[in-house]
C-alpha cells in the first residue's frame, strides 16, 4: 500500500510555492488587491496546516476555499448581507504597471473596462483561464459548475468581449 503524502506545513508551503499564481488569481479576481489576496491565501493555508486533516485533492480544495474566503472577506468589507449579490471585478488580474508601452497599457485598460460589462461568471472564467493559468476543469471545480458549462461561459464570454472591444476601438478611431 503506497504511503500517503504527509500533508504537513512543508507540504502546504510547497504547494503555495508551486501554485501561487493560481491561488492568488482566484482571490484577486474578487478582492482587486494583491496584498489582500496574499493574506487570504496565507490564512487559508495556515488553517489547513493547523487542521491537519488529509485532503484528497489539495489544489482543488485550496482553490475553492480561497474563493469562498475571498467572497466572504469582500462581503464583510462592503458590509453586505448574505442575500446581496456580489460580483468579481477581475480587472485587477491585469497588471497595468507591467505593460511594456503606452499602446499595451491602453489595450489593457480597454480590456479591463470590457470585462466589467460582460456576465460575472463569464468574466471570472475568462480571467482565471487567461490570467490565472487555471484549466477549464480547475475553473469548473472552483466555481462548482459543470466543465461543459465552464467551457460555454468561456466561449460566450470571449464573443461578448470581442464585440465590446471592436465597438470601443471603432468609437476611439
Amino acid at each position, binding site marked *: 500500500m503506497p504511503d*500517503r*503524502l*504527509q*500533508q*504537513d*506545513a*512543508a507540504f*502546504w*508551503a510547497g504547494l*503555495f*510555492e508551486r501554485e*501561487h*499564481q493560481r491561488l*492568488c*488569481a482566484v482571490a*484577486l479576481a474578487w478582492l482587486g488587491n*494583491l*496584498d489582500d489576496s*496574499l493574506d487570504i*491565501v*496565507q490564512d487559508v*493555508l*495556515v488553517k489547513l*496546516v*493547523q*487542521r*491537519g*486533516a*488529509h485532503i484528497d485533492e489539495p489544489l482543488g480544495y485550496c482553490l475553492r476555499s480561497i474563493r469562498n474566503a475571498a467572497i466572504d472577506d469582500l462581503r464583510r468589507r462592503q458590509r453586505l448581507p448574505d442575500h446581496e449579490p456580489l460580483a468579481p471585478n477581475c480587472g*485587477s*488580474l*491585469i*497588471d497595468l504597471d*507591467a*505593460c*511594456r508601452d503606452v499602446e*499595451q497599457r491602453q*489595450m*489593457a485598460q480597454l*480590456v479591463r473596462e470590457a470585462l466589467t460589462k460582460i456576465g460575472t461568471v463569464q468574466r471570472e472564467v*475568462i480571467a482565471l483561464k*487567461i*490570467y*490565472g*493559468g487555471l484549466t477549464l476543469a480547475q475553473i469548473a471545480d472552483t466555481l462548482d459548475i459543470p466543465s461543459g458549462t465552464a467551457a460555454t461561459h468561456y466561449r460566450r464570454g*470571449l464573443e461578448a*468581449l*470581442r464585440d465590446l*472591444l471592436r465597438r470601443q476601438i471603432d468609437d476611439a478611431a
Partner: protein
Amino acid sequence: MTPPEIDPLEHLLGDLPAARPTTRDIGRVRDAIAHCNTTTVETSANGKQQVARLLRQRSITIPQAIAACIVVCIGSVLTTMLLISTPHPHDDASGRNESPTQRRVAPPASNGGPQLVIQTDFFTRHQPEPTPRHIGIRQWTTGGGQ
C-alpha cells in the same frame, strides 16, 4: 497533427501582463505557512479519528471549566446585590431612610379636617397597585378635630 488554432482574441488577452506577487511576498507567505505554530500530524487511514482527536484537543480543560463557573456565579451574585441595593424609582425620597413598616404621617390639612391615611404593607411597597387586602384605611383627626 496540426495544433489547435488559437483565437486571436485569446492571444491578444494573453499578451497583457498578469498581476503577480513579488518574489519577496511569495517567500514571506511560504515561510509563514511553513513555520505556523502546529504539531506534525501523522496521516492515518481514518480521517475521522484525526478530526475527533483535534476536537478533543481544542476543548477546554476541567480547571478552565471550573474557573468559568466560578466567574459566572460571582457575576450573578454581584448583579443580584446591585439590583437589591438600587432604590425603587417610585420611592419617596423623604422616606428613603424610613423603616418599611413605619407609618407615614400625613401633613396636617390646611382646613384642620380629617385626613385619610393609607397604610400599605411592606411587601406591597414596590407594587404599582397594592392589592385591597393589604390596605388598611384609617381616619385621623388633627388639631381640634370636630
